[in-house]
């Protein structure tokens, strides 16, 4: 069995190409388990998984929950109200309390960048980052990669256009890191107000027009635009945003004929994506959800099974 020398999954940043391949290969196997009638295994029997969500996310939380249950772990969900005043205090205090209950893995979602890493320093179990502020969302990037690899057979040299609110997107950061590590060509397409400083040095090609950015793309990955950023702050209006950056059938024509359409969800139909495309033949948005459970199974199995554990980091 290959070597995976990490105790936590805090981001894509620290992962090598073989380590990512290992996770994706295991996730492929996990897909088979999920498609059987008997979905429950005993891989993680006796182990305890706690989902600690400081930010509400039904989709990600249930995906992690299902992944743990299918591996036979005992899963507990903790949704902590996100009081904006003392978030951080709650984070450390809650983590220490939970740590005393001897969980084997903590799955953490928090609105502040670095929250998962901070928590990992304070607890004695494995930590999986389920999204920390605008920093990283590693399991999302892994599930996107798995979806692409299963559809295209490879990740190297394919062209992926990541479109929309890159500035605020942890999904974009994790995907840029992972796709580059695997040899894909990454483009970002967005109005300049929604791109982070230094984007041109993040190993991506930058476009401000969908037509140019999508040209010959193998994958079109749309990002969610948060409601509070729609009207007048980062873009003038929903109408104008959809006009220039919303993915509709017309804009999609610029991409390759068999290009995949992806979205991490939840979608704002009519804002960043039109229903005709979201529900169309090129869409793999539902497949992404399925791959999400598989990838999370692979991650937890890899982190928790002791035979994988080499020198810890």
């Amino acid at each position, binding site marked *: 069995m290959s070597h995976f020398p990490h105790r936590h999954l805090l981001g894509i940043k620290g992962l090598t190409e073989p380590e990512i391949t290992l996770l994706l290969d295991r996730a492929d196997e996990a897909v088979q388990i999920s498609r059987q009638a008997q979905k429950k295994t005993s891989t993680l029997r006796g182990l305890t998984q706690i989902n600690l969500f400081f930010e509400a996310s039904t989709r990600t939380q249930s995906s992690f929950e299902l992944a743990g249950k299918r591996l036979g772990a005992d899963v507990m969900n903790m949704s902590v109200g996100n009081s904006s005043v003392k*978030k951080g205090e709650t984070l450390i205090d809650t983590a220490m309390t939970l740590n005393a209950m001897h969980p084997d893995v903590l799955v953490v979602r928090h609105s502040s960048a670095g929250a998962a890493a901070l928590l990992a320093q304070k607890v004695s179990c494995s930590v999986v980052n389920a999204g920390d502020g605008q920093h990283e969302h590693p399991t999302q990037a892994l599930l996107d990669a798995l979806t692409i690899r299963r559809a295209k057979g490879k990740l190297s040299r394919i062209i992926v256009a990541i479109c929309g609110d890159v500035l605020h997107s942890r999904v974009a950061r994790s995907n840029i890191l992972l796709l580059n590590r695997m040899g894909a060509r990454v483009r970002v397409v967005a109005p300049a107000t929604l791109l982070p400083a230094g984007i041109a040095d993040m190993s991506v090609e930058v476009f401000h027009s969908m037509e140019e950015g999508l040209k010959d793309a193998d994958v079109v990955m749309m990002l969610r635009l948060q409601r509070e950023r729609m009207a007048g702050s980062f873009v003038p209006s929903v109408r104008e945003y959809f006009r220039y950056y919303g993915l509709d059938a017309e804009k999609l024509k610029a991409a390759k004929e068999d290009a995949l359409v992806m979205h991490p969800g939840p979608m704002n139909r009519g804002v960043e994506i039109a229903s005709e495309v979201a529900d169309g033949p090129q869409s793999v948005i539902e497949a992404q959800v399925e791959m999400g459970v598989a990838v999370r199974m692979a991650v937890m199995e890899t982190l928790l099974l002791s035979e994988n554990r080499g020198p810890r980091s």
Partner: protein
Amino acid sequence: MTDTVLAPDAAPAQAGRPLALTNLRIVDPARNLDETGTVLIAEGRILAAGRDAANQGLPEGGQRIDCTDLVAIPGLVDTRVFVGEPGAEHRETIASAARAAAAGGITSFVAMPDTDPVIDDVALIEFLLKTGRDKAVVNVHAAAALTRGLHGEEMTELGLLREAGAVCFTNGREPIHDTLVLRRAMTYARDFDTVIALETRDRYLGAGGVMNEGLLASWLGLAGIPREAEIIPLERDLRIASLTKARYHAAKISLPESVEAVNAAKARGAKVSAGISINHLTLNENDIGDYRTFFKVSPPLRAEDDRRAMVEALAKGEIDIISSSHDPQDVDTKRLPFADAADGAIGLETMLAAALRLHHSGEVPLMRLIDALSTRPARIFGLDAGTLAPGARADLTLIDLEEPWVVAREQLLSRSKNTPFENARFTGRVVETYVGGKRVHTGRA
């Protein structure tokens, strides 16, 4: 004269009992003096300091201490120190800050008004100064709030506060956004011949930002603060300084563009000066690494190119002074996700050693460093300090320029431990600190 070797148990110089420190290198920027000689101290004052100081013989009944291999400098003057008293004594008291200052070779510091309550009233200045006199081992000066409650709206009683002993006016950590308030306060302050020391940060451009804007912040997913958030309000303030002819001190600049703005203001005759925190001379944004909150300061640590440019500007004297910007924070404000953590780093005990890195690297001459750490801040803020000239109060620091040491958290005297220099290796250490001729710190084991 009794001969003694330097030892911690040596009796501190008594008032009235003269003290002769011999065979040391004396660096006194006020007199552009750098020579080996003797420092004579009597009744809390310098009798003489230099090569010829012992020519008339040593005073009767005095104590002689051989200081071979040590350097005597005027005690450091730190004009930007945040203390927790009143209101946050668990972070730092005036007494604990003073002990930390003495350990760092600082003999005078100016306490910022960002306390609870804010130092914006005569009674509070009196409280602060009295506490300093009664409990602090170094000279404690008070900066008064320029606006009531630091809200940036109404000016405080500048004249009365000045009379009560405020050495300068500042809005502490809070910039002043309202240009009309600033204009009036500066116009009024001019008549009291006081300096106004401000930090600049645009309330809109800098809003929500937690570190230097750029690639690093983008990868970390942290909201960036653009350079213009410092530069634009600084240029604005410098225009108002020209307009009002008040004395303005840009307290904590971090960018070469800010130096240019200050240079331009000086060139057009404005009475302005510039300061920088030791952190911005010795650290850069890369030090933040994986969300290390002890490196979260305001203005944010900048890129390495900026740091180098600031060191160069310091060497040229375009940046006048260095402060520690000592800002004690506790685990409750620092052990948080980066964006939620408070700004600030302690620095009293490490400022000199960190600054000496610039001497050892050959980037800033020792004379200029001591000028920026002692002589010039004393002059800008009108303090009786910053020189070893005959007649000056005997505030001096003896340093061993070559002694290596490692910063150990548990040895810090500050009540708060949020140092960005934990485990840092320094060359050059404070050996003894004297205030008014009295030894207030010894670093000898």
